[in-house]
């Protein structure tokens, strides 16, 4: 039986096992490979997506748990106001090295800015410590989040 799913403002009907994790539905069934497989256990954050704006680990989220929630992935993160600024700061500061974790980092950073418009270092540590960067691009991640926060604030002020 087909289950309806809303991803990146589009509706999809998928006929798969409801226990199949959202990560693999995105990658295999919807052909949205930007969300990455890292650990399969919710330990690395590479598979982070937004579910109704909330950062979740898609490898730990079975289809049955998604329901009517709206899924946003890296492919459409620019549609979220803070997400656009996060992506731009990521490019400006050239944050990625290998780049594999960065979709997850960007999702968590976008969620952080939605919660905490002017994050301090402790806020960044708390929100981002679930996202591993094996290349250790953490110094630029921290800087980019602050830059994106400033740009998002400036948008609101304008």
């Amino acid at each position, binding site marked *: 039986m087909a289950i309806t799913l809303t991803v990146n403002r589009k509706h999809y009907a998928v006929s*798969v*096992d409801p226990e*199949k*994790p959202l990560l*693999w539905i995105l990658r*295999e069934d919807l*052909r*949205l*490979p*930007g*969300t*990455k*497989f*890292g*650990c*399969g*256990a919710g*330990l*690395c954050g*590479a598979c982070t997506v937004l579910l109704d704006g909330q950062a979740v680990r898609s490898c730990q989220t079975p289809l049955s748990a998604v329901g009517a929630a709206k899924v946003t*992935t*890296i*492919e459409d*993160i620019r549609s979220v106001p803070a997400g656009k600024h996060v*992506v731009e700061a*990521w*490019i400006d500061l*050239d*944050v*990625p*090295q*290998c*780049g*594999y*974790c*960065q*979709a997850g980092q*960007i999702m968590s950073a976008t969620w952080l800015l939605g919660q905490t418009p002017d994050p301090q*270092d402790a806020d*960044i*540590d*708390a929100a*981002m*410590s*679930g*996202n*591993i*960067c*094996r*290349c*250790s*691009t*953490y*110094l*630029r*991640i*921290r800087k980019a989040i602050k830059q994106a926060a400033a740009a998002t604030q400036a948008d609101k002020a304008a």
Partner: protein
Amino acid sequence: MNAADAISRRSFLSASLLAGAALAFHVRLALAAENGAPVGTLTAFVRINPDNSVVIGAKNPEIGQGVKTMLPMLIAEELDVDWEQVRIEQTLADDKIYGPQSAGGSRATPVNWLPMRQAGAAARAMLVSAAATQWGVKPDALITSGGMVRHAASGRSASYASLAPAAAAVPPPAFETVPLKPDSAFRIIGTPRRGVDTPAIVRGAPLFGIDTDLPNMVYAALETCPVFQGVIKSHDDAAALAVKGVIAVVPINSGIVPKGQKDALAIVADSWWTAQKARALLKVEWDLAAQRHFSTAGYEKAAVSSLSGAPQSDILRKGDVAAGLAGAVKTVSARYDYPFLAHATLEPQNCTGLFDQDRLTLWAPSQAPTGGRKQVADMLGIAPESLIIHLTRIGGGFGRRLMSDYMVQVAQIARALPGRPVKMIYSRADDIRHDFYRPAGWHGLTAGLDKDGAIVALKDHFVTFGAPDAPVRAAEMEATEFPAQIVPNIHFGASWLQTNLSTGWLRAPTSNAMAFVFQSFLDEVALAAGVDLPTLILRTLGEDRLLPQVGRAPQFNTGRARKVIEEARRFAAWDGKRPDRWTGIGRGFGFYFSHAGYFAEVVDATVSKSGQIKVDKVWVVGDIGSHVINPLNAEHQAQGSVIDGLAQAIIGQKIDQVDGAVVQENFDGFPLMRIDSAPPEVAVRFVTSPYPPTGIGEPALPPVIPALANAIYAATGQRLRSLPLRTAAV
């Protein structure tokens, strides 16, 4: 025929007009080793499109080290185009065309620095020659910039694209006669350039091996023998095959057991998740008997026992170490050790293959596709030329993907399913438990000081894996280990243990461990000598000179070492004072020369009352030659290397083995550095020296580990001689 003649005869450039009036240059250059002997050829590929945009081929695997940006920068510089005009295309893997294509040893910069520039300069010369002929002027009356040729006297100018038809007919110049730009004219080299893939990465574009997507593709998970070198005795796949979506179960050989034996079962399904689920239903009887006795506890026991005896073989004997120690005013002895480590690339090992009509096509996130081609051809019994290898972007290398097991594995699965593309993916547990580990090691060291505090004798008993003159991969120790080339009396000996684990190169291989051992021990020696570590090293280095070449290792230049050490002292305002009490706050120093790069680093660390280590700041000073080609990336590589090194020290990274099998399975057991444990600041400074540029992917890593261990000593008085570092409460 001398070496130079051999090189010029094997070098050529061809230009051809493509459909749509694009101009393609294929520049083939013979590559010379440092001693001038030809070692291979390299082809650079440049295409000038009718709109005057330029496509440059990137030939080396991109693992995050920035090579896909850096090598084309060299061509673009000498071709004299604006970086904004340039688009980069990843080439296929084919060493017959492109020369060395590996991402390892920080070699891409030294190997390509001249040839890539010569390629760009030769292509530029043909365009200039075409313009000169058209305008009836001498080539040296013309200048170029931004992809245009200009004649100042007449005010004429032409785009490279408009000169394409004429340039295609110009006889190619001899490479030796094509002048390269003087440094003062560089407009790309030495300027900060963002990674060429950065915009695609943050868009979520399918760049990585694991993102490969082909029509009709199926997915494979692997049930691999949990114990290395164990093989399948028997298996029952009926329950797994009965799962909806499962297509086949294929026994394969991972390349680490004898041919004919099988040590893994590939479960192929219409979804990787389904394949992984069905895997639990396989019934496999493994033959593990010969491997079960290997364990971490066993290695430790054997190592300690070895250290109490004499080494089994010599690495270096120089002077008379016994006499040197007997005559010493002071001696210092200590034992150091470090564990096996996994690479834990964030993109799990994976590979996609399609076997069709006796041709195998692979989409491989490989750091060493040439080696992979050979091993796959050998395993399948097909000609190496019948393989087509696409290089994908790589989600972290760190040396793991210098090995080709995933290519060998997917090749066998693909052959069992001809015409179907198969994407094989390791689970995280597979990835951590089937790595090629940085080998553990144990050292028993003694140094002797004379009355002036100079090191007169040094001995090390190194317990490692393999056999005399046949260490397992990355388990060797160099006879050039500092300060062996300088101190008059040296004995480096080794004892050898056996392991069933596969070992391999981890970023800054051997150096990542040796730096910890030797620079920590030298800090102990410096303390005995009544000086700080930089003073002891500078005193030991002596006058500026080049130490003798040994084997293929890069030569050690004591003057370059001195400069980075002095600059690091200035940069960090190092005062050299030893603490008079333990405050929990300390500063440490480390220096190391590896991968042709000289790095001196200072760490400020705080140890809490409960023994928690926090790194407050790191200062890095490096010398990687005359130019830092892309400073934006070089800074980032140094910072990443430093934090990577700290991860080996402070978050408990180690691989343990029980009953022959690796214990750790995921990032809970084998932790990776997270943002809340990373230092808030890593300050990087490069000093330049008049030598050709060298790589930056590795040499900044080794010195940070001893610098931290030395900082912890300064903070607490605890001398930590075992990795990962574990402090007691203070």
